């Protein structure tokens, strides 16, 4: 069996597994939950695709960023005082012309990919707000549709050469291939994290790490829920001793 056929078979199997999983999840979660997910996945798909709304989004983000820089570099003062002196405005435009835009040609694809991932994640979180309802059949169909859309977005991103083949099915061969697969996934993860970090550095510059620290701390602290009080005493978990 040649590599291309194996790759096709694996892609097909993966496609149907994803659709089945999402259909099953839809059946369990209910129609409103699945419709919410569908709306966000679809929005993520449209905004993450350059041929649909992606280009417009990038132009809008860069435009708003430059407008913000204009205000920061004296534009706000000019508007507040009503002093629209041509020289002052020219100086401001000269200053902001050197400022790099947050989304450049180098990180264009990554930025759109992150937008898609972000909206899908938001959709997934928003879908948890709904309780299960009485239309499991319809929910199953919408769940499958979600799986189809996600496959349509993400399956083309998989590599053409498969990290796992069926050539050597001896124990040592399978172990060696599993090691290769683990290495491949690890490398993919490291590359993904590095690219994401580079993108953040490009957008936020030296404030990237302080902002990341602040966000992680606030998210972690917000997730702590109040302990229930028993017999008038605080039943704290953790506070006090190690």
């Amino acid at each position: 069996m040649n590599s291309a056929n194996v790759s096709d078979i694996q892609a097909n199997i993966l496609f149907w597994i994803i659709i089945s999983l999402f259909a099953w999840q839809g059946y369990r979660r209910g129609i409103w939950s699945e419709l919410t997910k569908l709306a966000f996945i679809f929005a993520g798909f449209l905004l993450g695709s350059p041929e649909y709304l992606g280009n417009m989004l990038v132009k809008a983000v860069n435009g708003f960023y430059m407008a913000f820089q204009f205000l920061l570099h004296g534009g706000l003062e000019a508007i507040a005082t009503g002093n629209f002196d041509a020289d002052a405005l020219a100086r401001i435009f000269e200053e902001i012309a050197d400022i790099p835009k947050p989304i450049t040609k180098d990180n264009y694809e990554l930025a759109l990919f992150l937008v898609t991932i972000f909206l899908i994640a938001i959709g997934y979180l928003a879908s948890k707000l709904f309780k299960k309802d009485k239309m499991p059949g319809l929910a199953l169909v919408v769940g499958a549709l979600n799986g189809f859309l996600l496959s349509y977005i993400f399956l083309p991103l998989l590599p053409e050469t498969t990290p796992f083949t069926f050539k050597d099915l001896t124990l040592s061969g399978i172990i060696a291939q599993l090691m290769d697969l683990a290495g491949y996934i690890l490398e993919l993860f490291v590359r993904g994290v590095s690219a994401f970090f580079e993108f953040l550095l490009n957008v936020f510059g030296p404030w990237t790490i302080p902002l990341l620290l602040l966000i992680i701390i606030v998210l972690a602290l917000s997730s702590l829920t109040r302990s229930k009080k028993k017999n008038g005493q605080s039943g704290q978990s953790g506070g006090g001793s190690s």
Partner: protein
Amino acid sequence: MGPFEYLWLTVFFIFILVAFVRKYNKELGTTTLIFVALFLITYFGVPKLPRLINDAYQQIFDAPLSERSIQHIMASGLSLFFIAIVFASYAGDTFAFKGKPAKGTRGFIFNLLVGIVNGYLISGTLWYLQDYFKYPITDFGILQLPLTHLGETLANFLPPYVVPPIFWAVLVGVMLIFRVLK
């Protein structure tokens, strides 16, 4: 001894494991004290202490300290101070946050994130104290320079290099606000 950064990466991973064992609500108490220590080190320790030490030494012995000696004293002294604060945050009555930590996948992610933060802050600060004071530890032959390419890249992202001193105080403030709210 292997490349310099391996030791610090080991410390980093150990603190991630510690976060999984202790849970992130307790680890956040440690994080608070680390922020306090970092504020003291970066706002007062590193910029002001070398001159104070030199002046005091000159007053007592009527001779200036060599630059390398100051670097040794500063790196060792501040590292011990920092380790003592981290140790104190783990021992006895801790500064743990009240409330139940999230469970399941969310809990796993928060344990991981807070572990990464603590590992990064602790190993990064100890590395920074060596890097800023020109690696005095290498004089004892314990670790060797030069840094590898990876080491040099990582050294640019050590916490005190990338976070302004006053921001540590802001983070302490945020933690205290949440402590009152919870």
